[in-house]
Structures are given as C-alpha cells and as structure tokens.
C-alpha cells in the first residue's frame, strides 16, 4: 500500500467528503486507484493544491469544506468529481469551463477506472443495497427491510 503522506491526506479528504470511514474506503480496494486516476487527469500540481488546501483547514467541518474546497473555482469541480467517483464508481468529464481555465487535462473524459469501481460504489452501501449485478445479498434477503450500515 502506498503510505506516503499525500495518499494519507487523500484518504482523510475522502473520509470527510464521503462520510464513510477509512476501513470502508480501504475495503473497496479502490482508494489508490482513485487517487492515481484523479491525479492523472488533473495533474500533480492541482492535486497538491487540493491536498494542501484540505490539510490546512483548521477543522474539517462541512462548512469549511464548502468554503475552501467545494467553493473554490478550481478545486470545487475536482472534489465534486471525487465524491461522485467514490459513490458511483465513475469519473465524469470535468466541465468545459474548468478545462478552459485550468486544463488541458488530456486524460479527462467520462469513464469507469476499473470494472471493480462500479462494483464498489458507495451509493449502494449508503442505502443498504448492492450494485446491480454484483455482491448479491443472497436468496430471499430482498424480502425483508434493508440494513443500512452506520460507518
């Protein structure tokens, strides 16, 4: 596992923006891939800015995250994409306006980083379901109310 500081910060950022803990995030097996994917698309420099902006927050409240990350012209689109990537397993093409201002990001586009990314989407966990076509919960499990995990 990559245990350099940048990756650790990426993980902490991911915890803050998804509301899921690190055990769940690492358990997807996708954390390193997502880090690498995002960095490949937006470049090392912008990723650094994002990680630094996050690390510099005095506290990691939703208000401060909104103000300094989601509300930032350059970082906002990137961090929103990270939320969608964690929840849905899809990297969505960045807005054209972002490309004009901060591009070119040659590897940008809408794509699934790996077939497992789809399977590991956190939106399914969030609602006590499972991705269509994978992680089947077993015969007749659908006949009772779902169990929605807390962590």
């Amino acid at each position: 596992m990559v245990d350099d500081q940048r990756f650790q910060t990426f993980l902490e950022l991911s915890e803050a923006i998804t509301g899921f803990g690190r055990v769940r995030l690492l358990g997807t097996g996708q954390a390193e891939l997502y880090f690498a994917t995002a960095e490949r698309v937006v470049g090392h420099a912008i990723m650094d800015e994002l990680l630094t902006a996050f690390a510099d927050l005095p506290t990691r409240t939703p208000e401060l995250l909104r103000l300094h990350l989601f509300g930032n012209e350059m970082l906002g689109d990137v961090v929103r994409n990270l939320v969608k990537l964690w929840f849905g397993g899809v990297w969505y093409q960045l807005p054209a306006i972002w490309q004009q201002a901060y591009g070119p990001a040659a590897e940008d586009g809408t794509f699934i980083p790996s077939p497992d990314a789809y399977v590991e989407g956190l939106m399914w966990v969030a609602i006590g379901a499972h991705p269509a076509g994978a992680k089947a919960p077993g015969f007749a499990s659908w006949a009772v109310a779902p169990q929605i995990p807390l962590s």
Partner: protein
Amino acid sequence: MTATSHDVVIVGGGVAGSLIAKRLSHAGLKVLMLEAGPESTRSFADYNAHLDRFYAASAKGAESPWPPAVGAPQPDGGDIGTGKGYFVQRGPNQYGSTYTRTLGGSTLHWLGVSLRMLPEDFELQTRCGVGLDWPIGYSTLSPYYDQAEHEMGVSADVAQQQYHGLSFTPGYDYPMRHIPQSYSDRVLAAAVDGTRIALGDTSVAVRVRPYPAARNSIPRHSYQPRGAIDLDRRGNPYLLTIGERCEGNTACTPICPVQAKYHAGKTLVEADWRHLELRTRAVASRVLVDPASGEVQGIRYQRYERPDAPNFVEQTATGRYYVLAAHAVENARLLLASDLPGRSGLVGRHLMDHPALYAWGRSPLAVGPFRGPQSSSGIEEFRAGAFRAQHAAFRFDIGNDGWRATTGAPDTTVAQAVLQQGLIGQSLRHRLREQLGNQVRFSLAVEQLADATNRVSIDPAYRDAFGNPRPVIDYRITDYTLAGMAAALQVARQIFARAGITDCTGQDELSFPTVNYQGRNFAYHGMGHFAGTHLMGADPRQSVVDSHQRSWDHRNLYLAGAGSFPSMGTSNPTLTLAALALRIADDLIAQFPNAAGAAAQCGGL
C-alpha cells in the same frame, strides 16, 4: 458445399432453437444448429468476461454485456429515435425493442417473466370482436406449458396462478416455489391488496401477486435446478452448481452473474451431443427452395472466423427438415432476403410488441429498493375482461430497482445531490437514503393487436457488413392500444392514491419515444416482445404457418418463435414460444417413424 446432410437443420441457438435441438437429439435425430453469433457464452470464463464488460460500461443498457459480431449486427436501445443503428425505422412510431445475436439469444438479457397466455387470449376475435384468433386453444398448449416450465425452470405456485380462467393439469405444480416477494412488494400489498380499482364502469379488487419467473428458487420434489454452464477440458458442456438458486443480484436484465436466471445455453448443455452438431459464427443468409415443389433444399450461410472482421466464406447446410428459430425479426428478414414473401404475402407483417409506460412515485414508507430480482410481483387483474372489446388489456410489473429505468437513479440522484444541492459527507448519505429509499416504479405493459401494416420488410438500399439486407420497420401504435395506455395510467394513479404514494411520473425522465393520444403524450418503451411476423392460422391464404408452425408454402420448413403468434395478450412471449417449440419438436419426431420418441427421454417432467 458441405457433404454431410442432417435430419434437421436449425437456424438460431436461442430458446426456441435450443429446446427443439435438445428434444430432437434425444430422439436420435441428426441435428445441425447454425448460430449467427459467437460461442462466447459456453464457458464460464467467457461468460464472466461479458459480466466484466457490463461492469465497465458507462451506459448499462440491455445490450451492454453482449456486443454483436460485425457480421451479425443487432438493434441497440441507444439507437432508438436517432435514425442510426441496425433497424431502419420508417415510423410513424419508433419500435422500441431489441434482441441479442449471440449463442443463447435474447434469453441472455431477458428478465425471465414466464406467464402463460390466458385462455381468452387465444379467442380474442370470437370473444371480443378484435384481433385474431389462434387456430389452437389453451387446452392444446397446456401440456406443453407444463413441459416448458420444467425445461426452463420456472418458479411459481399454481395456487397463486389460477386467475382469469387459467387452469392447470390436475396435480401439476411448477418445478420450484415462487420467488419470494420483495419487501417493497409487501409494503405495497399491505396498502392495496383487496382494494377495488375502477376501470370504465366496473371495478376490480387488485392484488400484488408474485409472477412465474424463470429464475431458480426452492425446488419442489426431485426437481434439479440448472445453474451456470461451462465446458470441460475436452470441450464438453456441463452444469456447475453455482447459480442453482437466485441470489438477488438485481441484474436479470442485462446479465445474471451467477446464471440463476434461465438462458438457452442451459438447454443446449442437456442436448444429446452425439447427435447434435453446433456451428457458431454461421449467419444464415438464404433459404434455398426447389421452385417446383416448394421444398427447402438448403440453407446458405456465411461463416466467419473473427467477430470483429467483415470477412466470411459461404457454405450450405442441407437436411430433410429445416427450422428457422432466428427470432421473429430475423426469421422474416431471412425469408424476405430469400425472395420468399409467402403466397399469402404475409411474411414480416403483423409485427407486435408490448409498448409499455412507466409510472413512478414516492412511497410514504421506506421500501428498500435496489435489491432482489428487478421485479418479483405484478398486478394481473387487468389482463382480461369485457373492456377488451374497446381497448387493450394491460398488466403491471412492480419494480424492485427504484427509478433506475425511468430517471437513471441512483447515479443521477448522487449527481443531483452533489452538483445541485452541494451535499457531502453524512448529509449526502442521509439524502440518498431519503431520496432512494422510498422509490416505487410500475411498468405498464399494454397489449397490441396484429395489424398487417406493422411490419418488417427489406430494402436493397440498406445492408449490413456482410451484405445482408437490414430489417426495415413500419410501426404504428393504434387507438386500441393507446386507449389501453390511458386506462393503465388511470389505474396506476388510483393505486398510488390508495397507497399514499406521491405520483412523480414524468419528473426527471430519461429520454423515451413518445406517442400522442387525444392531446396527451405518452412516453413509451419496448419490452423486447417481438411477435407476429409469420402468423399461424388455419387458412393458408391468411397465415404463413399452420398450427404446428409448419410453413404452408414449404412443407419441410418450420418457423419457430413468437413470429407465429396471431395475438399475444399481455403475456411476455417466451414461455408460450417455448411451449410451441416443444410442439414443433414432437411434430418433427413424428415425421421420422424410426426416431426414439421424445416423451420417454426428455422433457424433464
């Protein structure tokens, strides 16, 4: 020219072709099966490569796991309304359905709903003065339904299926118990079971009822469920134990990961391979006929090596009898491409589907969607009744996958919450639970009658990569069906109201073709229920095949599949076409007095 001749040549390795091949091979007849698609569904590893393809697809439509070969193109949901794709759509309405041209056919991506047709569906003209009667009735088909349900592995309880005059052989029950109803079904049932819903000037008590499904459940008696298939090291097919029970993958369409849902490959595994030869990557391109006798003399086909290349060599297969089981559209297209429109001129005409509407809303209680088979119950009360003299019958499929089909949830829900509402972290998770947890969706499938102007034809101007003419489709949804759609929506609204469900129909809708009726636009979709392109009848002047699906014009040729249906009622067609296919097999075996006989050796009963 290949030198060997077979007793029977079958074109198409879908459910119809496979059931016939299995039964004939067990009777000792020498069978050749020509299949247009590649054989990439025979081994477990290859099948799983299709699954990975589905995971990796950013658009997860019904065809996403099943890409066609260059020489065997197929319609794609994404092409509807764009003017692009395999079908040449001449309108006025878009034909909204698709099929799969890979070994196993459209059962690779079907949903598995396996309803019998109602006795009254076979006599629609006589009883209601609309549509066409069948030359055979429910009682003729009933024993074949029993057999088809065992061949395909259908889960249901007879006790829950005796409605609208459906009767069963005494002592009969389905091979497996019904698929458990979903939590969402049960919440709805608690709210509406037994309430009377108005339709015209009558009212009917409705019930949320499990429908028969070709998905493995708990077996009855000694029935052995068939799971996934594989090839051993010598290339012999066999059944694995995985998939002997549905696991709730919520992906029957487009691909069941564990193969707990029936697909035609399971039937082929059980054929007697000493007598069956399978030739895949073989696209039938012409039926060769003796002009004097009308008898078929051979099937010309295009054999290719690589699915991704437009190269092929031409060969001819010969036998004593021939069966076209290439799908309703492909059967008609192949006959027309062979200059065989039939003396009746009806080949390709009377194309039908079940154009369907969605109705969706929010339940007052959480229903736990996105789990279980995509649906497990239906509302069947409106499949029959005197109203059929005025408008189409319809049935409801009650979804277990939220608004996925209608709005693209849950992905679109995440996107909205993040982009529009700016939610993150716990508040995002909370929002998703709230937004997704109470989603309810009905699919309202509406009957369509046989209409000679709705048809598949060919035009030399439109050809595929192998030079074969592409299907040209003329399609109109008439007032009979449109009035049925209006009635179905009204019923859905009443049920929503009774259950306290907030109607959200039309909101954030994905793009669907629309049709206008009395100033209203209905967004509809196809169900994949192609039927009627080689009509069955008692009169050779008004039909293409007789009641055994034997061609009136070519007596050594059978046309299998829903193309033979004079009407479809509200049943999804596959179980009925399977029952009819088994009847073809018996009729064929009877043409060979020395054959071993069918019933003793196969049928699974």
